[in-house]
């Protein structure tokens, strides 16, 4: 615990991830759709960054590129000091296992594993064991201490997503990528998840990148970047929900 805090303080000013001049297009020729158009973005350590934008703006593509889930046509993607664009499939797998965490809209838990096994899955794949104190702290933070032996089918949607959050947090990754984490939840469960993410950043110095189209969700972030037609069009720092809504309104008006 102590070491983690020190480490994060030391590197607070560093970058957890960055994209440099990243471009990506789907299809070729006349039917080509530009998803990312020369985007550069820095993700700072220990910050909660939200990526927003209308459907088709390229926000998910950007997140997939940053997380090493998708390839890019040109440009560079870094996680910490590691350049993803040159890594092999095996290297990418190892990176995802140790240095990146994911939270998906569809929870994506393994139905055959208990909640605890789902949480420790990335560590088990890497043949690592969790520090018990850290594990207890994370489980306590998501409020699942009495649900650990349950299978996903025995948990509510909110509980499942909290399991997914704990799974992402436990290996202390460089970055957690959350893809519409509240998209499948009612507003109360969604707020719980967002509060937990916020807390991870504040208390555990975790770096989080979240893709969302919900202004209320984006308001939990330290910074919101707006994408439109594959370009970075706006950057808000510590916004509230109204600012986010206004910006989105402006963007969609400019679009029409």
């Amino acid at each position, binding site marked *: 615990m102590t070491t983690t805090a020190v480490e994060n303080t030391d590197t607070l000013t560093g970058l957890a991830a960055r994209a440099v001049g990243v471009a990506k297009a789907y299809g070729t020729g006349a039917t080509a759709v530009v998803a990312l158009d020369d985007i550069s973005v820095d993700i700072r350590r220990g910050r909660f960054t939200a990526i927003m934008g209308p459907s088709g703006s390229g926000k998910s593509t950007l997140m997939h590129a940053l997380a090493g889930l998708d390839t890019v046509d040109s440009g560079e993607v870094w996680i910490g000091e590691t350049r993803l664009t040159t890594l092999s*499939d*095996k290297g990418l*797998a190892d990176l995802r296992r140790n240095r990146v965490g994911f939270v998906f*809209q569809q929870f*994506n838990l393994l139905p055959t594993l208990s909640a605890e096994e789902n949480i420790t899955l990335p560590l088990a*794949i*890497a043949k690592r064991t969790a520090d018990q104190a850290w594990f207890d702290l994370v489980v306590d933070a998501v409020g699942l201490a009495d649900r650990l032996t349950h299978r996903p089918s025995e948990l509510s949607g909110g509980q499942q997503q909290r399991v997914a959050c704990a799974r992402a947090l436990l290996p202390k990754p460089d970055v957690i990528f959350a893809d519409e984490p509240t998209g499948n939840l009612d507003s109360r469960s969604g707020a719980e998840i967002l509060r937990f993410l916020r807390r991870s950043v504040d208390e555990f110095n975790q770096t989080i990148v979240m893709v969302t189209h919900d202004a209320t969700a984006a308001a939990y972030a330290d910074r919101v970047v707006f994408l439109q037609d594959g370009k970075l069009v706006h950057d808000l720092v510590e916004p509230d929900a109204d600012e986010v809504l206004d910006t989105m309104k402006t963007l969609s008006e400019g679009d029409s």
Partner: protein
Amino acid sequence: MLKAALKGLLARKLRLTLAGFAVVLGVMAVSAAMITTTTIGSGFDSIFASTGANTDVSVSGKSDVDSGMGGRAFAPPVPASVVADLEDVPGAKSVRGEVSVDGARPVGPDGKVISVQGPPRSGVAWHGETGLVRLWSGRGPTAPDEVAINGGLADRGQFTVGEKIDVLTLAPRQSFTIVGIYGYSNGRGSMGGDTQVAFTEPVAQKLMLGASDVYSSVTVTAERGVSRSALRDRVAAALGDGYTVRTGDELAASTAEDGKAFLDIVRMVLLGFSGLSLLVGIFLILNTFSILVAQRTGELALMAALGARRKQIVGSVLVEAAIVGAAASVVGIGLGLGVSVLLTMVMEANSGASLPVGLTVPVPELVLAFVLGVVVTLVAALVPAVRASRVPPVRAMRASAAEQRSLTRITWLGAVPAALGVAAVVVSLADIGSLRWVALAGGVVLGLFGLALLTPVLSRSLLPALGRVVGWSMPSKLGNRNAARNPRRTAITVSTLVITLGLVGGVSVIAESMRADLSASATRDLGADLVISGDGVAGRAGGQGGGPPTAADGRIMPTFDASVVDQARAVPGVSRAVAQYVDTVRFEWGASPAAAADLSQLSAVLNLSARTPAPGSVALDSATLSDHGLKVGDMVRLATQRAGWQEFRIAGGYEANYLLRGPVFNPSDVASLFVSAAPAIGYVQLADGADAATVTRAVSRLVADNPEVSVQDRTQLADDAAGQISIAETMLYVLLGLSVVIGILGIINTMALSIVERTRELGLLRAVGMRRSHMVRMVVTESVVMSLFGAVLGLAAGGAAGVAVVRVLGLSATEIPWVSLAVFLGLAVVAGLLAALAPSTRAARVNVLSAIAYE
């Protein structure tokens, strides 16, 4: 509805191909069996039709000893006086005695006896170029040391006129000069692949019939205007009972029947294989259609929501099944045709018979095979179809396909028959007389039925344990959990392996126990150090291991010259040498092995105490005596091959053992009673201190010129006795190997579906850092754990049933072949690995993005 079904069919080509594969194999075997046997059968009919053409009526001796084994029986010879008797029958133009008997075994250039599978190796009396026979070169035999041979034999042995040929007959090996080679009026050198050696008549009578002035048959030709059947009736009336009188056509038909006897074995093997592959095919089809229907639950529910009736939904699945069944059956029949062509060629090559007909295709049987294939497919698809129609539309559109249903009901349904089955098997172990077999069979069937229903619940407890054996790593753990995920699907998937390995387990336990029993009994009862005999003769002389060997059951029993035993007695280091003559006799209650020997001497080597019966009397084993209320001093009626029904005085009794059973005659009676007057077994006992190797060499030299006979010590004899079991066992394993292939297909099928269903999970695993190699390991574990589960279940159940069979058979030992069972388990692992090849590659290639992206 039909159109939708057809479109669905095309979209799922690969999976349907897998499902159809079992039907293809089954139908292929059925149609190959039908076509091959019909083709060869009609070939034989047409070959032998010509043999009846020149004979109007044929007279042969009637055998009183029916071995019950089918094939060519040894008919007692017809006395020469019959020829004279028949010349007076009105309507008879000419009467001629013939000698034509199976059992002239020519020695080939390599020093081994020329063997043919199926057709006879005849020894005949030469009558010149009459009837069918046409000389191709040289002339007929005129001197006792001359023979003519047929073209078939000349081809096989590369014999030419002027060369020497050695022949084994009822007499020991003799050398002859080939003076002629002949063929038949139809231009062929062989009748259905037979070999023939033609001696002068007196020699043929001596060597083939064992007596002078006798014939194997007498043929009568009719005067113009006298019909064959009329002449037959007149001849029969003139001779009275005791002879078989047939027209030429009847003779030809019966000769062809004899020639076709081996076809029954071919047919049985092919149909057995076919039955097995259709049985396991049902499970594969059931599995495939369950999967297809599960995948399409949403689609079918949509149809229901749009107003399709339940009947229409069942119909749409059944239409698919019917098309698959029909296509697979057509392919199967096509392949069956190919296999038949190959089989016919192989048989022609093996038997030397070239068939005068092309492929004969029995249309009604093939239609039957086709219908069988379609019906099997439909029956197997019915359960999943009905299940699909019962899903309420709303639930189906929402819920995931792999929905869990409670196992409580199926477990109770299985537990009841399983418990009853086990109880019945336990009861069968107690001595309850003839009901034991009924109890055992019923118990095994009930037990298997119960096991099938219990497999899902067993998978819950067994799979985790097996998984721990297979691997501890996270990917292995995930694979193991996946295997246990859907107990019903796992159960259906492994059912083929359970059935196959159940049979394998049972067969291996029974075979191992029989081997132990046979080799133990063979040596336990044998006091001799060396045994002179042909392959398998000694092992069967006591009536064990497939019944007694005789010349009468169509297999020619190897014998040797009686002087060999006398010479062996003179070899230094030999303390005792005894000859045993072997044949089959018939009591009023059935057939029995019989022997003739100097019983006082034989008793010493077989650990008995009995005295040699006087000529004309017999010694009987005590079991036969007590079973039929006989005692020493009584008269017993029995039929011998040569003398027919006669009464014999029972001179003494003895305790039957593995090597000796049934009536024992005085050796001097052999010539008049037994087919062969030469001994079939010689027992040699060594003097104390004699060097076994030296004596064995010396005794072996005595039979060096007889390629059919060898000298074996006790170990070899035990192995020889056990060896016959091994051959049958191996043949069974080869057949079962093919159903393992179908089992592998079943696993591939299920795994492929699981991977499609779990794309999202697979993507997640990649996202949280599983390497491709991890994915492969996960899928391989799932497959291996499933096949191990099936194998363990099958081998355990089959082994237990095998032990029960062994006990009920009353074998002296229950041997469990642990090594073989371990090998079968290992093979199951290999099967699991093979089945995982394609699915694991596919899992490793799952695209992370497409898997986690939400629709």
